[in-house]
Structures are given as C-alpha cells and as structure tokens.
C-alpha cells in the first residue's frame, strides 16, 4: 500500500492525524524536523518516520516518493511566525511550493490537502456572517500573509489541491491564557475541537472529488459565540473572574464561518461546544483529584 505523507506529522495535530489514519488502516509516512518528539509514532507498525526539513529539496523529494496522498501541515505558527518573517515564508510558502513541485514531477495524481487558515480573511467584523469561502483575503499578520501566498502558489502549481481554511483550534486541556486575547470581547468567534480538525484533514485526503476546492473548517453552529462568552465559560470552569481577561481593542481575525459545504462533503463536525466544555470539566476534576 502506498503511504499517505503527513508533513508536520510529529506536531500536536499532526500526531493525531497520523494515528487516525493508521487506525483506519492506512500506512503513513511522517515527515518532520529531526528535533521533534516522535513518541507514539516511532516503531509503530504502519508508520514510517522520515526526519528532514521542508526547506531542503532533497528532504522533500524523499518525503513525497511513492505517496498516495499528502496532508501538508508543516508550518511555522504564531507567535514564532510573527517574530521570523523570512523563515515563515521559507517554511510556509516556499516549503509548500517545494512539496507541490516534487509531487507534480513524481506522482501528480496524489491529492494534496493544505492546511490554511480562516485568519486569511482578516477583519470581517463589518460583514454579515457567516464568512463564505469566496470572501476576499486580507492578512492581519505574517502568518496569514504566508498562508495567502501559499494558497496562491498551490492554485498555480498543483491543481490537485484541497485547501482547508481552519479556524482556531480548541484543545480540551488546561492552558495558560495569553496576556491579551487576540479578539475583541464582543467579536463573533467560532472555534473547532482539535479532533474534528483531524477528521476533516483525513477526510479531505480520502473522500475524492475535492480537488481544487476550498473549505472553511470550523466547529458549526454550537460553537458560535463571542469572545467574552467563550472566555467566560473557560474562566468559570477554573473559578477565575472574567474581569481578569483582557481583550484586544481592535478586531482580530475571528468570526462565524460558512461550513455547510465542508460539513456536507467531509462530515467532520461531531463534537459540540457543550461536549468540549464537558471534556474540559472532566480534565479539571481529574487534576483536582491528583
């Protein structure tokens, strides 16, 4: 069986994508930087680990050799992306183009799933929700700028691409908040559970007939809320007054998104916002008992 390549496969979402594909019977090639943590991947039947660097041509050629599909997650994310513009473009744009060109030469039938971001829409607070996939793109930061450029490059170089514009990913674990939340208190917000993102990425590579399409990937109607309400739910669970939260005074990139078509094709929205809060509550109870 030809393997599915997962670039950035040792990262937080990547590892779960690899494990999900394996569980569904696929063989997987994980491609990531040598200094990543490969626990749970190395030595597992059906998983081939390839350490390399997406900025290096030889590495990329080795990675795409003989694959049946590619889920391309490798990227520099905020906050690192905002501190290293050149590296961000080298990884997020040139790295993506390198993967596409290598695929085009060796196996152009392999679908490429590209993880883009809804942050490419920029400030959409002035438009009527939900934000559609044909909405104009206007970057507010370096990361979004790099994703817009990478999408453009893929459209030109590799038609067999599916672009997923993924919303903010909510992870059911307790994490420190940033000093300032990157959205306004009254701004519309629709995040998505990490496991639903994994489902969407895997489905996009497997369902077929999605080449050339662009999908918004967000949690669905149960996740539609505002910045303040979302953070209040989190703080309430932790017993912290909402007054402790500080919000941006100018709009961030968050909004509600049109996911009707992505849900129809990919069938990935399975964890409601209430279920996510339940998982968080469970985590907290577990930690309190320790």
């Amino acid at each position, binding site marked *: 069986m030809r393997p599915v390549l997962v670039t950035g496969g040792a990262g937080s979402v990547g590892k779960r994508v690899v494990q999900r594909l394996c569980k569904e019977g696929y063989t997987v090639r994980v491609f990531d930087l040598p200094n990543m943590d490969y626990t749970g991947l190395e030595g597992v039947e059906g998983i081939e680990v390839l350490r390399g660097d997406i900025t290096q041509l030889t590495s990329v050629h080795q990675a795409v050799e003989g694959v049946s599909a590619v889920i391309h997650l490798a990227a520099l994310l905020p906050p690192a992306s905002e501190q290293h513009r050149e590296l961000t473009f080298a990884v997020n744009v040139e790295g993506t183009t390198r993967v596409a060109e290598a695929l085009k030469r060796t196996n152009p039938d392999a679908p490429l799933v590209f993880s883009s971001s809804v942050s490419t829409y920029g400030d959409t607070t002035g438009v009527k929700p939900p934000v559609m996939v044909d909405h104009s793109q206007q970057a507010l930061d370096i990361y979004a700028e790099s994703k817009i450029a990478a999408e453009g490059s893929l459209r030109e170089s590799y038609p067999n691409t599916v672009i997923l514009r*993924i919303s903010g990913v909510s992870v059911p*674990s307790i994490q420190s908040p940033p000093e300032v939340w990157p959205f306004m208190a009254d701004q519309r917000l629709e995040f998505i559970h990490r496991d639903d993102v994994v489902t969407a990425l895997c489905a996009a590579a497997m369902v077929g007939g999605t080449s050339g399409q662009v999908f918004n990937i967000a949690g669905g109607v149960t996740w539609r809320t505002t910045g303040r309400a979302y953070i209040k739910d989190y703080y309430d669970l*932790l*017993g912290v007054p909402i007054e402790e939260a500080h919000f941006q005074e100018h709009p961030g990139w968050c909004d509600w998104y049109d996911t009707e078509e992505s849900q129809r094709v990919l069938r990935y929205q399975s964890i409601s916002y209430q279920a996510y809060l339940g998982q968080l509550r469970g985590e*907290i109870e577990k930690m*309190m008992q320790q």
Partner: protein
Amino acid sequence: MIPKGIENANATIEACRLTLAGLDSADPESKEVLQSVIEILEGLKTKFFLKTNLAIPITNASRKDATELQSLVEEHDLSCFSEVLARFRGNMEKLLKEANMDGLIIT
C-alpha cells in the same frame, strides 16, 4: 477577593520567613531550601494558575507543610523537621510543574 491559591502562597511565604528567622544558623541547607521556596512562590504569584481552582489543593498542601515547619521551629522540636521539609520540597516541585502550563493553540 484574593484567589485562594494566592492567599495560600502568601501564607506559605510568611511561614517560610518565620521558620527561617527561627532556624539555627548551623543548618544552612534547610535555610537555602526555604529561601529558594520564597523566591519561587514570589515568582509564581503572577501566574494564571495561582488564580484558578486548580491551584487550591497543591497550595493548601504547601501551606500546611510550611505551617508545620514553622511550628516545629517555634516549639524547638526538630525531630521530624527534615521529613516535613522533604515533603514540602516535593509539593513545591509539583506546584512549579503544574503552574507552568502550555500555551494556547490558535491557528
């Protein structure tokens, strides 16, 4: 209202200071431990974790340890001082680990 975790941290620092003041200068190792606990707690007080309910069990335990050390010194009964100090160190290490939570993932 001051969060319970921070209230506990303040009480623990105070108990450590009183213990330090009452400790014999012939025990530099214990003094060093208590001094470093004070510094660590002062640093942790600004952490989000200390404001959450999650901090209550571990800071309760640390406060209890520190108060016990203080009582032992005040009563001049150091027979189990090392044992309580070791437990206190263990709880402080756990608190330090829990307070340094990972950052939020937002794409």
